[in-house]
């Protein structure tokens, strides 16, 4: 199991700031497919952070990680 943090419009869409995903291990690519298919969350242009670092498609999400969906940012 691992946690997924949601921000901005994704948080509002889900109505929650966290999801708990009952998977042992996923690549980032597989994780994005899961978000699209099961949670209907758009992931185009959305970056993935694992434990507060940006990840690439082939990085592995493991048990206990904190994953975040990072839509295009607009700070500054």
């Amino acid at each position, binding site marked *: 199991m691992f946690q997924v943090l949601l921000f901005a419009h994704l948080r509002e869409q889900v109505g929650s700031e966290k999801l708990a995903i009952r998977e042992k291990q996923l690549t980032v690519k597989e994780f994005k497919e899961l978000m699209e298919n099961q949670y209907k969350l758009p992931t185009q242009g959305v970056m993935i952070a694992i434990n507060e670092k940006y990840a690439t498609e082939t990085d592995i999400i493991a048990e206990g990680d904190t994953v975040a969906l990072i*839509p295009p940012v607009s*700070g500054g």
Partner: protein
Amino acid sequence: MFDIVSRPIDIGKVINQVEHRNAGAIVTFIGTVREMTQDKKTLYLEYEAYEPMAREMLSNIGKEIKKQWPGTVTAIVHRIGHLDIGDIAVVIAVSSPHRSDAYEANRYAIERIKTLVPIWKKEHWEDGDLWIGNQEGTVSYTENQSKV
């Protein structure tokens, strides 16, 4: 000093962080909440951040700058929460022995923030609100939002 705060930013304190005996130039960028964007009138903004990651990334920008422009010192503070027109959202201060580096490094910092640091703003207008999708406001997430 690289921080995400919920209270008004004290510009002087950010500048103090970068002052030193061999700083001949300090360039600061102050980002404020603008009322008009094209013909739309903003009422207020809300900023949200993935705080620990945003703090870490601001600090990384400082390291990148020190490497690329040796001798510079950088401080960045970004405010989150409810901001009214004219309020300060971000202060970036860069000091350097020579002015050219201070301007360039400061510009680099704001461009990095607007591309990479996990902070989002939601614009509130009279007829709706919207999470802004990238730094120039050219991408937005209309499908999930109230009509604007």
